[in-house]
């Protein structure tokens, strides 16, 4: 029983990270119908920004988190303006390839600055509670609750505020909305900024949980988060959250039952199986309500 609960807790921690990153994929897809493959690397930059803030500036947890989120939000907007906006009328494939290129650029830019794996200092005091063999750490609680809070805040913003309404409107029809007086470019930039900053928050927490960071850390995690978004129904915000937790549970569950060699095999089979029977994901609809 303790063993089962411990694995559930592990799954919840991993799942909340995947969910946070998946939100970035799903928001951008929802609004522009493009897959921002550089998002996994924005997550990596987020971790490095947090590292820089914590070691060079000596900041504590909250300022570090805010610094990383702001810096990466700015980078996200910059990438959108410089790399994606000129291609808005181009073929979808061109934008996807550009995104892949931006991802590789970000990796190698980081590599040029820091080829060595870096060690993230602990930003919060470490406590561990033990309930009859079940270990619960302060870090685990922080990751789970902070991710939940960020996700709820985003969900509220998209559904209840004017900006959120504009996002939903753009995702509905990008050609008509400007005629209603919606500043489309500003809303798209804001979407990139929010998606990137959530990725940076995930990067910061990830770097605290798995405290050795390197320029390639975003690749696999990025793919997993992308799968989460697709599983939940890409373009759908609640779907991305659910997808993240499902993926975390499947990964941890696979390793708990089968030899751990099968983990990625099971995860990618899940994606393939789902794409055959329900290509629009769990919460998506064949004509999805985007963002």
């Amino acid at each position, binding site marked *: 029983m303790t063993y089962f609960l411990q694995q559930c807790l592990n799954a919840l921690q991993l799942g909340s990270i995947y969910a946070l990153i998946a939100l970035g994929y799903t928001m951008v897809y929802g609004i522009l119908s493009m897959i921002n493959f550089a998002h996994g690397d924005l997550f990596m930059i987020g971790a490095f920004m947090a590292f820089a803030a914590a070691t060079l500036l000596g900041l504590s947890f909250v300022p570090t988190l805010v610094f990383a989120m702001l810096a990466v939000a700015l980078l996200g907007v910059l990438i959108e303006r410089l790399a994606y906006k000129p291609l808005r009328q181009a073929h979808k494939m061109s934008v996807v390839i550009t995104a892949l290129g931006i991802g590789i650029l970000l990796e190698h830019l980081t590599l040029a600055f820091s080829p060595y794996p870096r060690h993230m200092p602990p930003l919060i005091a470490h406590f561990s509670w033990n309930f009859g063999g079940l270990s619960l750490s302060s870090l685990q609680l922080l990751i789970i609750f902070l991710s939940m809070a960020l996700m709820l805040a985003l969900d509220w913003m998209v559904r209840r505020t004017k900006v959120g309404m504009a996002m939903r409107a753009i995702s509905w029809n990008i050609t008509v909305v400007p005629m209603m007086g919606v500043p489309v470019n500003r809303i798209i930039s804001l979407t990139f900024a929010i998606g990137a900053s959530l990725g940076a928050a995930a990067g910061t927490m990830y770097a605290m949980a798995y*405290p050795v960071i390197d320029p390639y*850390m975003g690749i696999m995690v990025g793919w997993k988060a992308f799968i989460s978004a697709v599983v939940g129904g890409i373009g759908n915000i609640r779907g991305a959250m659910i997808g993240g937790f499902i993926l975390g549970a499947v990964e941890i569950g696979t390793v708990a039952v089968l030899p751990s060699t099968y983990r990625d095999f099971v995860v990618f089979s899940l994606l393939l199986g789902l794409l055959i029977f329900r290509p629009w994901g769990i919460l998506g609809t064949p004509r999805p309500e985007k963002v």
Partner: protein
Amino acid sequence: MLWPNSSYPCLIVEAIMKFVLRLCAFLSVSMLAGMLYAAEKNDALKIGVIAELTGDIPAVGASCQNAVLLAVQEINEAGGLDLPGGKQQIDLHIEDSANKADQAALTAQKLITEENVLAIIGPNASLGAVPASAIAESGRTVLITPWSTNPKTTLDARSGKPKKYVFRACYTDPFEGHVLALFVLNTLKFKRVAALYDVASEAPKSQTDLFRKSFTAQGGEMVAVETYTSGDRDFSAQLTKIKAANPDLVFLPSYYNDVPLVVRQAKRLGVTAPFLGSDAWSSPELIPLSEGAVEGFYFANHFAVDIATPAAKRFIAAYQAKYNKLPDDVAALSYDACGLLFQAIKQAGALNRESIRDALAKISSYKGVTGTMQFKEGSGDPIKSAVILQIKNGKFVWITNAEP
């Protein structure tokens, strides 16, 4: 003739034939020129190095490069290598393998065919050393890997016989697996061991297999064998499983970049058993990255700073003076690989790949930084001992020697 009734296609065929002939003539002339050029270049004492300068284990490549630069600097500052025709300066050509199998093979090919090096030192990790050694073998060029312990590096995959041109400066995985198993059973007196290893990496996989074979043959029990894939950061599921199996010790033959993540998560999840590592742990980076979570743990290694021989002390002092840090095992082994190669070149008498290979195989006893070594009859594997170290107060401390 294809179309005997029409002269037009005949003209085309003729033109093609003429072109082919001209191409042949041009190619043979340029090849001849290339060979002459190559023969001329072979007079220079040019040595290639393949190191993991970028990628996931850059500390390994940096140590190798530092040690080779030091070894060559020592020779060149003394006027050069003593050869029958007078002293000659050594010319180095360093390539980066990024710890990727394909890039290692590609750089080996480049060094052999384009740069015309006399011999190659590296790659260090087995992931790149295995494919690069196959290229060196087919290119008939000596390759000495300082740090690759995988048996496949010096064995031909198809015939199962030792490769003729591939040598190493370190011991091999079966030997390490065996001495670690004996250490756990006889010195630590543990019977129940769990293992966690990277399935996507050559060395950890074979080390775990060989450790398991020796350990169970000697009466030990493997209570859990878990795996992960290179690049993984979350080991919580595997460690929770290992914790439930309640082992006396966890065998973790991972590289220094994964070890800190595993041991720190293990501490958080309440795994109290000590960990045992392979020679891949030995980078000094391990200590700061782990933040004390490796304290008291053990690993096998090629050399220990605290029981250094006079030759090793001289090397350690020179390395510290030049780079302001202690050399790790990769540095020591790279330095020895250079030493072996220089001695072979001196004894070869002629500056060509074939005679260097023959001289290297005949070295009877080389006193290196990492101990005395000679190559086994007809093989590129040296006969040498291992050391077992423990991490105490953030330092690698010598525990015992393991003889072959």
